[in-house]
């Protein structure tokens, strides 16, 4: 005879039904830190950077390697400010504000350093697709031509082979540059390292700050330091998953959609004629915001806003590159 049905043993208690939408725990309130920036008192929560304090006062501090969603690497040194009592200038993007600090953001010393940093970059890197940096160069009066005439581009792959500790002095009057042929080894995006300011953003995005793919790293040393895959193999032989998140964070256009690169080469790229439309990616259920850049009724590239909590500006290969299906007109 079959056992009669019994209630399950009471080790299991179903959780009560939620009465409200679960929210992340409230952030513990942080004590305030009071400091003085350019003679004005400002109060920021503990842990905020000097750049945050400047932003609160509405000060316009130039930045290149700083990105709102990433750990500061403070390598470009264009955001330096003068901190009373410090021997050298300090990078505002990473220096944590402390009570009692006295900071000047626009002293002669600060302006001189910023001008030189911009001058050094402009003399060694192609900034033609970095209008923000160009504007800063003009603002600070950078004169890159003081350092000599630009070195011709190095042959393909030559910079990738350079070894630390050995170099040649160029002809007198020639200023070394990172100029080299564009790397085009796949159909989705190109790497034009002539435009690379070595801000480390792509390495962070490919690594543990976004994608966790680790296909690229900084290699070499000194002026020959470069972004590279292992042994400089093409992307197609590397760990790259073509999410394009490195393009999303590149401040100079060194990493660029192939579509954009081709149109620029053909002279048809026209940002003023482009319309940006936000939509939601339909490939899966995550709900990433896509910003479609449309020119002549054709999608020319796809980005995602850095301030959306779902993507933080990051996408996957489908959202970023899988848009041809919507414009097959045949």
């Amino acid at each position, binding site marked *: 005879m079959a056992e009669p049905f019994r209630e399950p043993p009471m080790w299991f208690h179903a959780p009560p039904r939620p009465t409200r939408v679960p929210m992340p725990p409230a952030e513990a309130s942080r004590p305030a830190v009071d400091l003085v920036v350019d003679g004005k008192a400002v109060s920021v929560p503990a842990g905020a950077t000097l750049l945050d304090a400047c932003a609160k006062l509405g000060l316009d501090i130039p930045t290149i390697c700083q990105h709102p969603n990433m750990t500061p690497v*403070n*390598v*470009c*040194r*264009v955001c*330096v400010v003068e901190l009373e009592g410090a021997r*050298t*200038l300090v*990078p505002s993007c*990473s220096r*944590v504000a402390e009570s009692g600090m006295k900071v000047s953001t626009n002293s002669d*010393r600060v302006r*001189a*350093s910023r001008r*030189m*940093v911009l001058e*050094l*970059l402009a*003399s*060694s890197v192609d900034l033609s697709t970095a209008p923000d940096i160009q504007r800063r160069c003009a603002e600070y009066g950078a004169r890159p031509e*003081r*350092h*000599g005439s630009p070195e011709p581009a190095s042959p393909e792959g030559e910079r990738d082979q350079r*070894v*630390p*500790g*050995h*170099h040649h*002095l*160029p002809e*007198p*009057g*020639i*200023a*070394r540059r990172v100029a080299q042929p564009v790397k085009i080894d796949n159909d989705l995006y190109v790497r034009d390292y002539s435009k690379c*300011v*070595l801000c480390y953003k792509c390495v962070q995005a490919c690594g543990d700050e976004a994608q*966790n*793919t*680790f*296909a*690229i*790293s*900084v*290699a*070499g*040393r*000194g*002026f*020959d*330091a470069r972004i*590279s*895959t*292992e*042994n400089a*193999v093409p992307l197609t*032989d*590397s*760990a790259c998953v073509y999410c394009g998140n490195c393009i999303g964070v590149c401040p100079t256009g060194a990493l660029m959609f192939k579509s954009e690169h081709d149109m620029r080469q053909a002279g048809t790229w026209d940002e003023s004629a482009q319309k940006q439309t936000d939509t939601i990616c339909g490939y899966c259920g995550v709900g990433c915001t896509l910003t479609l850049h449309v020119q002549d009724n054709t999608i020319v590239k796809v980005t995602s806003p850095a301030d959306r909590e779902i993507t933080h500006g990051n996408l996957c290969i489908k959202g970023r590159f899988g848009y041809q299906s919507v414009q097959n007109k045949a």
Partner: protein
Amino acid sequence: MDIVVRGPEPTDSERLAVDAVLGPPVSAWAGGVRDLGREGRISLLGGSEARSQRHLLLPALHAVQDRFGWLPPGALAHISRRLTIPPAEVHGVASFYQLFQLKPGARSQVHVCEDIACRHRGGLALERELRERHPGSEAVDIHGSPCLGVCEQAPAALVLRHGEKPGGGAIGGATARAVESAIESGSYPDAGLDWLKWAVPQSLHPEADLALLARVGRCDPASLEDYRRSGGYLGLAKALALGSEATIAEVVASGIVGRGGAAFPTGRKWDAVAKAADPERLVVCNADESEPGTFKDRVVMEGDPFALVEGMTIAGLAVGARKGYLYIRGEYPLAVRRMEGAIKAARAAGLLGDAISGSGVSFDIEIRRGAGAYICGEETALFNSIEGQRGEPRSKPPFPVQNGLFGKPTVINNVETLVNIPLVMREGGAAIAAMGTTGSKGRKLFCVSGNVARPGVYEFPFGITLAELIGKAGGVPDGRPVQAVLLGGAAGAFVGPAQLQVPLTFEGTRAIGATLGSGVVMVFDDTVDLGDTLQRIAAFFRDESCGQCVPCRVGTSRQEELVGRIRAGKPLGSLAEESALLDDLAQVMRDASICGLGHTASSALQSAVRLWGPGILNGAKLVDNHG
């Protein structure tokens, strides 16, 4: 971490070379052979273990380089799997160091010093001659090298041989013949006591007042017995009796400051770490001595290795650290062997390891070899190097005493600082503080090189003047006049003949706008083309910048180009404009670089231009502004 490794499979010998350092792999996940029975279908064996061993990356790369003479892609792929480090990052680290080669090389690698002390004393000619004698050789590769730290015997060369029994050694007073015979015989002139006696001229004079160098060239560096007989380990005994707080109090009372160049009070550093909240603390000895013209740390490690072991041990028990790392530059194979021997002997005698000398205190030392990068002498770059990252300096704050190696509170001291410690303990802090001047306490090692009769490491209580020191080193040979003296190395400053009366103290050198730095005193007589020296200094910083920050990465390059075009007689615009540009470069590097390399990359050049005008770059006749 899910990493993609696409490199070629390692050969058996490549696998063996790596596994010799890392031990056998636990599972297929960590680079071993797959064993379904043991691992199951989803292996979880060895993953987190592998990830926690990134600090073994540098030792693993060394093992491969020593075995094959280069880093074959298969071996690198195996290292990636074994340590779960993405291949791109392994490449990034390997390509950072000068002594790692990514292309196959010859059986013997000869590095000929072409830096400022050696180049005027036959270094450049030797390099040229070796290249002519061995063109495209399969047996020998010739490399020009930055300072090898054998400046007392300029010109210097370093021979490194790979194979199943790798070896290497330095050659002083090198000739092509001497280099070739070392390659053929596999034995090097640095083996005996004569080598050390040459390095420490005072060791030949029994009446010389030596404490730090007392044993160098006189005692057998391999003998713990000799060390103990000559007063060794009395300092540790006293420190064990006193305990942590009183030991630190002695060091504070001695007034000893860091001897690596930055001159930070040692006692204060120790005190900060001893009071850190984190109970896990570390001691690191910075033996990455690469400042051109500096060789004192090498001589101390080669000639008196137990003193450094004792100094580190005292530091460890004073701050409550159980572990110490000794980071020795890759160009010092003999120092590595001597230190390995000393650490082994100390362990066997119960002076390292658990329960030192029967006390309840444990401390042990691990050696790490650098691989040819000046920047790794910067303390935070050194931490990154040990941790298996690229040797790029970190941003300060936080400082090492709060957040150092592996994120732990860390005491990092130079070799010379640490060998002072047994002395401080033995003689008492007050006795050391009574020696020297008001601003500089105790004894100092000076690396005297260049145009003097007897170059070498000299030890004097602080207070000796530059002229006296040059006199002690036998003066300038052939009665030639001093043209200039470089104090503090490539990151230091030049002084002219009018400033020879400067006392070699921290405050004395500061008063004339120079620096004592690491104790370099390099003398140039009137035959030396100082413009060439300045060009080399500019090239040195161009080579050694890590490339992380813009002011230093591009600035050192622009500085070198500028010096080059003035020397070629082709300035852009007037000399005054070029001089202003040099000043601008100096200012941005000093003000906006991340670390000390950038801050000081212009200081020697600036000092020369200040003294003699920009014409000095062009070899113009010197007019001493101060005389």
